[in-house]
């Protein structure tokens, strides 16, 4: 990318709230049901049917607002957004236009290196999802599936605070992590639980006004957000450098071709004729209600992160990684509660355990090793019963069995060699067996030391403590 140009990005994230029922009807929300089986007379907009607001959706929106320290509206209004589309049964979508439930807030977005950037959240509002038009099932006509119609959405809108595609992707990831953490969204991107629209423009470095922007609609993965934006930023720069002008339009990202394409402009006008829905009274949130929601809030990632740094003296970057996923964070905390050393616990969770879960495509909710087992393993490292090499072997064994760590150590004879005489005998033998290498070390080639330690470890079948072996060798060779 030419360094003369600076991208400006803001995103809108549609979060499907994990309520039991739809936002204005009692139909249960469930992915993958047979078409139109999850649509009652309100969802199909029968004549005379009326909406009733789902309190659970309101609670979830408020939770998000509290988590980003936002203004929560004491009174907010639901509006009708009018347009005709076959999968929009009422001919309007119930949304919030002028008075959203959640006002201005702040989101802390963590970069890979652990540094933090504050992104402004403009607003978040409640609305209902539309149904789906099914084009590939019938040859002559389009099918309409209203199962999704009326699913509650929280639309989160950020300020144009991001300055790169990577930052926008990190922001989307942070919102994903936060709503999953709060338990208000299942976070399943593949099933469409979150969708991201990105507004992007570029300007000359140093400019204070914004360039003309385009909007990329409906991106459904972190990786695609980054790729779509990178493509679009390059495209805009190319246009501007060639002396052209960016056209304000809606584009869509074609992942197969890795490019953004102009979407056909809507056939119908963009005048949505918003006005307050007379079927729903203005929503008033009492301070008692807010207090009740506040009392159910979990410790937030930011708070937990700061606590991890203070209480366990973890590095910022480690604490960031531990608090990206609430299940990982609580796994970590219960491992420590069972007596494990925090640093070792963090290393093992982010290292060996993460790698193993990754291999099996599992997450921290269904790890086969309990936090108590992991704590036992770490305690055996702390008391030097196990070397880290042996510990990895034990981890593999407890991954597939429910046996206790100590039983496995006993049964497999994996205990670290702690008999000093036995180790000394081994070291002496290796010194005798390798006169050439000993000579090299004595003449200054200290690197060869590693080879001798390795030979001792091999002779001990991995049960010796490498540090102890190394110390002994140095002492016996007088270096």
């Amino acid at each position, binding site marked *: 990318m030419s360094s003369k140009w600076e991208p400006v990005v803001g995103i809108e994230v549609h979060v499907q709230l994990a309520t039991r029922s739809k936002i204005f009807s009692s139909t249960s929300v469930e992915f993958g049901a047979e078409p139109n089986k999850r649509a009652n007379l309100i969802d199909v*907009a*029968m004549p005379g049917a*009326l909406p*009733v607001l789902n309190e659970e959706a309101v609670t979830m929106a408020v939770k998000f607002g509290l988590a980003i320290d936002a203004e929560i509206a004491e009174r907010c209004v639901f509006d009708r957004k009018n347009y005709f589309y076959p999968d929009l049964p009422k001919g309007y979508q119930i949304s919030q236009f002028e008075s959203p439930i959640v006002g201005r807030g702040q989101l802390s977005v963590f970069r890979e290196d652990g540094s933090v950037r504050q992104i402004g959240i403009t607003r978040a509002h409640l609305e209902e999802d539309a149904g789906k038009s099914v084009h590939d099932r019938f040859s002559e006509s389009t099918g*309409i599936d209203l199962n999704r119609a009326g699913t509650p959405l929280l639309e989160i809108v950020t300020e144009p605070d991001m300055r790169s595609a990577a930052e926008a992707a990190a922001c989307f990831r942070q919102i994903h992590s936060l709503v999953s953490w709060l338990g208000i969204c299942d976070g399943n991107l593949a099933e469409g639980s979150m969708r991201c629209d990105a507004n992007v423009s570029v300007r000359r470095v140093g400019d204070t006004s914004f360039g003309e922007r385009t909007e990329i609609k409906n991106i459904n993965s972190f990786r695609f957000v980054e790729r779509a934006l990178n493509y679009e930023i390059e495209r805009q720069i190319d246009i501007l450098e060639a002396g052209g002008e960016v056209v304000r339009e809606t584009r869509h990202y074609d992942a197969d071709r890795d490019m953004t394409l102009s979407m056909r402009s809507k056939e119908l006008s963009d*005048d949505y004729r918003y*006005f307050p829905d007379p079927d729903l*009274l203005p929503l008033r949130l009492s301070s008692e209600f807010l207090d009740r929601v506040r009392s159910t809030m979990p410790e937030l990632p930011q708070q937990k992160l700061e606590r991890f740094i203070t209480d366990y003296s973890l590095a910022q970057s480690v604490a960031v990684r531990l608090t990206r996923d609430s299940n990982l964070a609580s796994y970590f905390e219960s491992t420590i509660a069972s007596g494990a050393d925090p640093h070792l616990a963090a290393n093992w969770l982010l290292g060996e355990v993460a790698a193993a879960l990754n291999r099996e495509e599992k997450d921290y909710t269904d790890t086969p090793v309990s936090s108590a087992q992991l704590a036992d393993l770490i305690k055996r490292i702390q008391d030097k019963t196990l070397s880290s090499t042996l510990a990895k072997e034990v981890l593999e064994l407890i991954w597939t069995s429910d046996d206790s760590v100590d039983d496995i150590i006993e049964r497999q004879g994996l205990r670290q060699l702690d008999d000093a005489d036995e180790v000394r005998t081994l070291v002496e033998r290796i010194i005798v067996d390798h006169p050439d290498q000993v000579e090299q070390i004595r003449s200054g080639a200290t690197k060869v030391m590693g080879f001798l330690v390795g030979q001792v470890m091999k002779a001990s079948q991995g049960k010796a403590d490498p540090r102890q072996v190394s110390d002994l060798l140095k002492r016996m060779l007088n270096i």
Partner: protein
Amino acid sequence: MKPFIGVQELRNDLRAKKYSAVELAHFYLDCISELNDSINCFITVDADRCLDRAAAADRHLAESDPQPLCGIPIAHKDLFCTAGLRTTCASNMLGSFIAPYDSTVVKQIAEAGAVTLGKTNMDEFAMGSSNETSWFGVVRNPWNLSRVPGGSSGGAAASVSSGMTPLATGSDTGGSIRQPASLCGITGLKPTYGRVSRFGMIAFASSLDQGGPLAHSASDVYELLAAMEGHDPQDSTSADIGKTVLPESDRSFVIGYPESLFDDLDKNIAACIERARQQFEALGHRIEVVELPHIDAAIAAYYVLSSAEASTNLARYDGVRYGHRTDVSEDLLDMYCRSRTEGFGLEVKRRILTGTYSLSVGYFDAYYLKAQKIRRLVRDGFLSAFESVDMILAPVTPNTAFEINSLKADPVEMYKQDLYTIPVSLAGLPALALPCGFVDDLPVGMQLIGPHFAEGEVLAGGMAFQGETDWHEHHPSLESASTS
């Protein structure tokens, strides 16, 4: 058996086994087959199920504690959804639509034991003041078959007035219960907005629509209201408030008299209401002159707001899921346009266009928002009047029933028919329309307007008046209407 019997007498007769509920149903069904061809107040008659339900009512009547309306026939305005029985809203759009559910009103009335005779004619989607916009043809006024019955609950009012049913449900958005009740010489109540559930009542203008009862007397209206009202968790605008309670019968009221409303009123109609005013005084109530400001702006505000809401309420009739769909279309947009062009009548289209316009970017503030401000001022005017009076006595209509087709070509003149009813609707107040005389052999009505949720008081006022007068006991002679 005779027509025009009140609820109390029907209940006593049924319980005393003077006749059975089945015999009673037959009596009214016969009345309908005799008169409906010339009056046209029913769109659908549900004779078979009516008789089945009457038979079930007879079994209940044999038990110790039958429901309050057990075995008493009723007709529903054709905008209340009825499971298994078509609900047309008097529109080609819903000409063969059968709802999969009962509206709350229909459900509650059935639970109270009443037996449905059928569905009554109305202005299409309740938009009209003459019942001339119905896809199923004009309803004729039983007092004079060349005249309109009023609207939009014209079928409901004419069916009660002509003796085809003792009770009928209606709905009132800007006067649609009170105006036809007055033009047909019967009693009708528009309850406080939120008193009766709107769930299953096909929407015209959601912030104004209110279901209510029509009957021969205030006492019968009260009986039916008791079955219709109540909090409904399925309607977010339904008020969580107790049942209507009548005040003690000897209570004397302070009745407000908005003199300025009578300035432009037909002198003969004004004379009828003036006479009623004196009768109220004779009954021991006190009359006090009140001012109602901003009334002159109410009609304009009403047509902006009600049309705006209607324009989006009627967006669901797109030919996709139910209702009329055109036979042939080129693409989606063409399908929408043809289906809606064919499905809706002229007045409905006029209001959709008006409403769409007033909600559009650039016009919203000048029309919709300004109309909301007027609405607030009208409401405040009433509330300040109610600081000194218990209820207000006012005209319902500027004239008696007019000739069919006489106003059809002039929508503004037609809209002015609702001059006295619309302000009450904008304020969401309850108002009881009841007969108070005749001009040239056509009935004249008046309305008693109460503060929010003061249905008990206005009904008590109406009952007191009807205890001393017999205007509500006059019935049309139907020889010319009879086809047998």
